């Protein structure tokens, strides 16, 4: 039987595998959700914001909470591959390495998006939020920001696979590189919530950042995977 799986077919296989594995235990998602919630509560205790102040800081707090929450999930995403030497098998498989990366990144994206869907109403409740700017733009900013974190995060988590102190390394190398994206997503969200300035520039930054780094990740994943 002569069957050639297209590149997207490979991506879909990897994606489906990760989704199924996660769905069976739901460890990552539950952990992320609870972690994000805790971060929100701690920040509220720290700042005790008034209604006006809430709008100023909610954007920042949301993304900080998501950042920390995704770190916990990203590390786990690859340990799954290390059990039973699955990673060696992946390296020998004929599917392109970047398809493995893309599948995993998309899976992580969906998990974090799910956390956001649950977190958003909580945010609105805790901070009595309603957007003073163009609220619908949040549907643009959230996916862009999430992808920026998840794409680089999945890549760097793979970089740290065989290092000692793996869990420590991921935030150390991810945060500096992500700073422009973090700035973009936080500023855009704050702009939308407060309506005080235009988010356009920040959205453009996010788009440019995503294009640049997604390309780099796809091109370099093969190298990173076969680093030895």
């Amino acid at each position, binding site marked *: 039987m002569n069957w050639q799986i297209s590149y997207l077919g490979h991506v879909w296989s990897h994606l489906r595998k990760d989704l199924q594995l996660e769905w069976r235990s739901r460890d990552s998602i539950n952990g992320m959700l609870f972690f994000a919630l805790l971060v929100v509560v701690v920040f509220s205790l720290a700042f005790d914001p008034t209604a006006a102040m809430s709008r100023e800081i909610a954007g920042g707090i949301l993304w900080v909470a998501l950042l920390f929450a995704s770190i916990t999930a990203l590390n786990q995403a690859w340990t799954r591959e290390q059990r039973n030497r699955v990673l060696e098998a992946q390296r020998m498989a004929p599917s392109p390495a970047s398809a493995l990366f893309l599948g995993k990144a998309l899976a992580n994206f969906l998990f974090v998006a799910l956390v956001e869907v649950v977190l958003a109403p909580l945010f609105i409740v805790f901070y009595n939020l309603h957007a003073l700017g163009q609220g619908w733009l949040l549907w643009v900013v959230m996916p862009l920001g999430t992808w920026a974190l998840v794409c*680089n995060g999945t890549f*760097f988590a793979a*970089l*740290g696979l*065989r*290092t*000692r*102190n793996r869990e*420590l*390394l991921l935030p*150390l*190398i991810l*945060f*500096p*590189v992500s*700073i*422009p994206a973090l*700035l*973009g997503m936080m*500023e855009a969200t704050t702009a939308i919530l407060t309506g005080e300035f235009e988010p356009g*520039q920040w959205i453009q*930054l996010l788009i*440019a*950042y995503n294009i*640049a*780094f997604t390309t*780099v990740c796809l091109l*370099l994943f093969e*190298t*990173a995977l076969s*680093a*030895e």
Partner: protein
Amino acid sequence: MERPRTLGPIGIAWFCLTLAVIVYATRMALVVAPTDALQGNVFRILYYHVPHSMLSLIFPYVNLVGSLGFLYWRRRDPLKALAADAVAISAAEVTVVYASICLLTGMLWGKVEWGIWWTWDWRLTSMLVLWLLYVSYLMLRRLSSTGQTQTLAAVLSIFAGIDVPIVYMSIRWWRTQHPSPIFFSGDPDSKLDRTMLPAFLWNLAAWAMWGVFLLTLRYLLERRRQDNEQNAALKAIEDSLELTR
């Protein structure tokens, strides 16, 4: 691997020349250059601060070139790849040294001029992020396991190299508190006075020469370590084969 005999004397000559230029430039900065009308003598910090800032934006690209070279030669010519990697790590360390000095001298100057140690304006913040990026590179090198380090670090270096301009752009959009840059803006009031230019240029040259010296020294150290590692590996192989019986 024997290095050509002429390299030693050239190295020493460069070092002496560099020291001479540094002394001369320092003298120009402290004695010859005129006192600033607005800020007084503390302005002389500029002659050390700005050259270090400018140079700390160049060494990251030396690191990037070294990393690209490593990735290119990794499978084609391993010996060249090792040399490229040595360039990469040296440039990263020198970047961190220069960026640290830029931050430290900037803070000391800022305390006098603005009354505050720090502010999140675009220049300081961008420099801080640059410093963070290359410290994270050094951390990756320290924490990753043998055999992988060079490749992983090279990959991170590419991310960092692409990120540097994006960081600068994004943070500049975010903040505008720092006084206008002295050389590269259209604002005529912020140009460095002609009488101060020689002192500045001498210092730029001095610290650039010193940077080349540091790069070379650190490169030689790394090559030595690589040689030792290879010899140790060879010795281990020989021992296991009992060839030296």
